[in-house]
Structure formats: C-alpha cells, structure tokens
C-alpha cells in the first residue's frame, strides 16, 4: 500500500532519514519505534507530505505522492500535539474539517460518541485540556473512515478509561483490514495493538519484521523485553563492527 523507496531527508547537514526503504501493507498494523529524535515523526510527516524528502520517492497504491495532495483523503492522521484554531469551538472544528474534506461516504462518529464530545461542542479550543484535545484529534482521525491510519503517540495524555476506548477502536479498525501505523513509547500498548515492528535508529531502519518473529528470535514473550534485547544485541553488533 505505502512503499517508501530510498528516502533521504537532511535538515542542513543533519541527516534525519538515511536511505530508508520500507513496504507497509494493508491489513497490518505497524509499531514505529525508536529513541527520541530517531526520525519517527519526520517519517510520518514525509508520508503526509508535510516534509519533503531530499531524495527518494514514496508511493501509495503505486502512485507517487510527491507534489500530490488528493491522496491524503486516504489517510487519517492523529498528531502528537493537536493544535487547532484557538477561537473555534469543538463543534466548529468538526464542521470545518467536514466541509474541507467534502467526504461523501458514511462518517464514523463512534469515537465522538464514546468520548462524549457532543456535550462539549460549545467549548472553545483554547479552554480544553491536553487530554480533551487528544480526544478531538483521535475522533477526527477516524471520522472519515480512511484506509490508512497514522497515530502519533495516540495514548499519551489520555485518562485510563479513554485509553481503553481508543485501543478498542484501533483494534477494531485493524481487524477490518486497515493499515495502521502507531508510534508510542508505551510498549504494552503496542504489544496489544500491532502485528509488525519498524525500528528506527538515527534515521536508519534497524528492524522490520513481524512481532511474532521478533519474540521467537529473542525468546521473550513481552514486546518491551524483546525490544530491549534487540537494542542491546544491536549495540553489541555495532561494537563488534567498530572494533
């Protein structure tokens, strides 16, 4: 579905993505992880067209996305920090996005209902807490029933009840055959939600395989343990290479 071919991104001299090649398929859900500053958000922004790669190409359904914009109707994006016009009410923000998207199919308002956002439609965005903003972002990402979902730290800042609601929703969408990309630092969440692992380190793709295989390779049953095993292994390897 999404194929990333030899993408490089440099900010000045600093390389953020280094010759990244990656295939993301429909029906799978990917955990995109890596330490802070490893290029996760840049990768997501490149797929969204917010950041333009220095070289390389990204295709969605075999069509290049560079200089294109209509493909974004296939993507639901939940940003790390959702910022909206501060003087608008929640209801107006939903209205605006609906207006802009000109979506013809059915709307998926399940999250609006389960987060009980309708009660708060009259509240202005600048009065909202971080958690409520996250709920708005989440509801917007799922609203248009897109085949691709990109969630940047979806559970950060949400209360435990809402986290469960959101996780159930993500699982449901994953089961219905969508492509889900999630970044998170909470391994237990990813363990429940994702089937594949993409591990980035300083712009390089270190690991890209199913989580099942990873667990088999490392002999661990928990994702967190398996990843730390992977990282230490990796460190040993690089030390070996450099020495």
């Amino acid at each position, binding site marked *: 579905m999404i194929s990333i071919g030899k993408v490089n991104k440099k*900010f000045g001299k600093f390389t953020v993505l280094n010759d990244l090649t990656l295939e993301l398929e429909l029906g799978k859900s990917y955990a995109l992880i890596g330490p802070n500053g490893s290029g996760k958000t840049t990768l997501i*922004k490149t797929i*969204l*067209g*917010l*950041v*333009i790669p220095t070289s390389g190409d990204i295709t969605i359904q075999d069509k290049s996305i560079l200089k294109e*914009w*209509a*493909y*974004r*109707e296939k*993507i639901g*994006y939940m*940003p790390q*920090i*959702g*910022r*909206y*016009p*501060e*003087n*608008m009410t929640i209801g107006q923000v939903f209205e*605006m*996005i609906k*207006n*802009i*998207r000109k979506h013809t199919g059915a709307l998926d308002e399940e999250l609006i209902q389960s987060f009980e956002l309708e009660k708060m439609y009259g509240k202005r965005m600048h009065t909202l807490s971080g958690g409520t903003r996250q709920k708005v972002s989440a509801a917007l990402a799922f609203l248009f029933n897109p085949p691709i979902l990109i969630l940047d730290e979806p559970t950060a800042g949400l209360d435990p009840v809402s986290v469960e609601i959101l996780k159930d929703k993500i699982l449901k969408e994953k089961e219905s055959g969508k492509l889900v990309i999630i970044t998170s630092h909470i391994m237990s969440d990813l363990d429940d939600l994702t089937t594949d692992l993409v591990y980035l380190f300083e712009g390089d793709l270190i690991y890209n395989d199913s989580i099942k295989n990873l667990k088999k390779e490392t002999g661990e049953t928990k994702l967190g343990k398996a990843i730390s095993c992977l990282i230490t292994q990796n460190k040993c390897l690089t030390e070996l290479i450099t020495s």
Partner: protein
Amino acid sequence: MTRIIKYILFDMLRTRFILLYLGFLLLSTISMFMLDGDNAKVVLSLLNIVLLVVPLVSVIFTTIHFYNSYEFMEMMLSQPINRKTVFLSQYLAVILALSLALLVGVGLPIFLYGASGSALTLLYASLMLTFVFVSLAFLAAVFTRDKAKAIGVGLLFWFYFALIYDALLLWVVYQFADYPIERATLAMISFNPVDLARILMLLQLDISALMGYTGAFYKEFFGSNMGFVYSTAILLLWTLIPVTWSMRIFKRKDL
C-alpha cells in the same frame, strides 16, 4: 478556498487585533475631521499617520498571524488540500481583514464628511500600501521558522522604506543638485512603495508648487492619468513579486 478564507477570517476577527486597528483608524480620522474644517489639511495630517501606521500594522499583524496559524496550516495540510490553496487563503484572509479595517476606519468618516478626490486617493494609496507590506511580511515569514527573526526582518522592511530610504534619497538629490536628475529620482522613488504612495498623494493635494522645479516635473508626470497608471502598476509589482516568491518557497517548505 472561500470556505477556508471564511474560517480564517472568523478566527482572526475574534483576536481583537483587527478591531483595535479599526478603532484606532476610526478615532484618528474622525477626530481630524472634527478638529479642522479644511478638507485638504485633514487629508494631509491623515497622510502622515497612514504612511507610518499602515505599513507597520500590516507587517506586524501578518507575521504574528502567520506564526500563530502554523499549527492550523499543519492541520490543514494533513487533510486533502493543496498547499497553494492553504497559502493563498491565508494571504487573502489577511489582506481582506486589513483592507476591511481601512475601508471602515478611514473610508467611512471620509464619506460622512464629504468625499473629495484627495481623500479617495488617500484611501487608495493606503490600500495599496497594505497589499505591498502584507506581501513583504509573508516573504519574511516563509523564510524562517523563527517568529522573532521574521518580525525583525519585517520591521526592517518598514524602517527601511518609511525612514532610511528617504534619507538616502535626500542625500543623493542634495549631492547631485546641480544635475538634471528628475528622471533618476523618479526611478529611485519606484523602488520605495511608501514614497510612491506619498508622491501620489502630495500631487493630489495641489501643494506640489512647494517642491519647486522637481515638483513641477512630478506634477506633470504623476498628475496625469499616465502617472496614476504607472504608480499603480509599480505598486502591484511590489505586491505580486514578493507574494509569488513566498508561495514558491511555501510549496517546498518543511512544516
């Protein structure tokens, strides 16, 4: 695009900056008219306010607005919308808001107290200045991610065109006073939108005789329809070149 412009305008009007600007213009224009019965004098005093305030407000408001809507633009661009549409909507919304404030703040009193040719030229010149300085400010804003830097560059534009350029021009004119430099100064004026607007106004006010031989030359040029068309064309160039340039940068910009 009209929908997006509507939303941006709506959000902008709520920040009260535009309303303050409108109030200031309304207050100063009405008080000028009340203090002085002579229409020409009122226009002259207004000219001095407008030439300083309009570019300054345009620059500051545009840069602040651009940076405040950074996240909003990011959100828009993660939706299926063209970058050009987002940029032009922002640009047109700012232009519309500031022009509206001018039209109500200066235009309304002018029409109430009797619209003369010179008063209308004043309104026209200030609208043109708004276009030019909004475009220049957009250019400054797309060049850097740093808000303070962009405001600084914008202010530098204002400082240069409103104050420094005049001093330079005066120095040149003084140094070469013995030569026939009317045409050269005419060309130099074209490089400063504020001067262009000022000359346009002064000649309407019929006080060009005070400027001696050069004044007569300008009168001959700017007083005619040709002069009006010329200055409009140059001011439009001052608007279009920065805005197309900044749009090209914005299209390739990492957000």
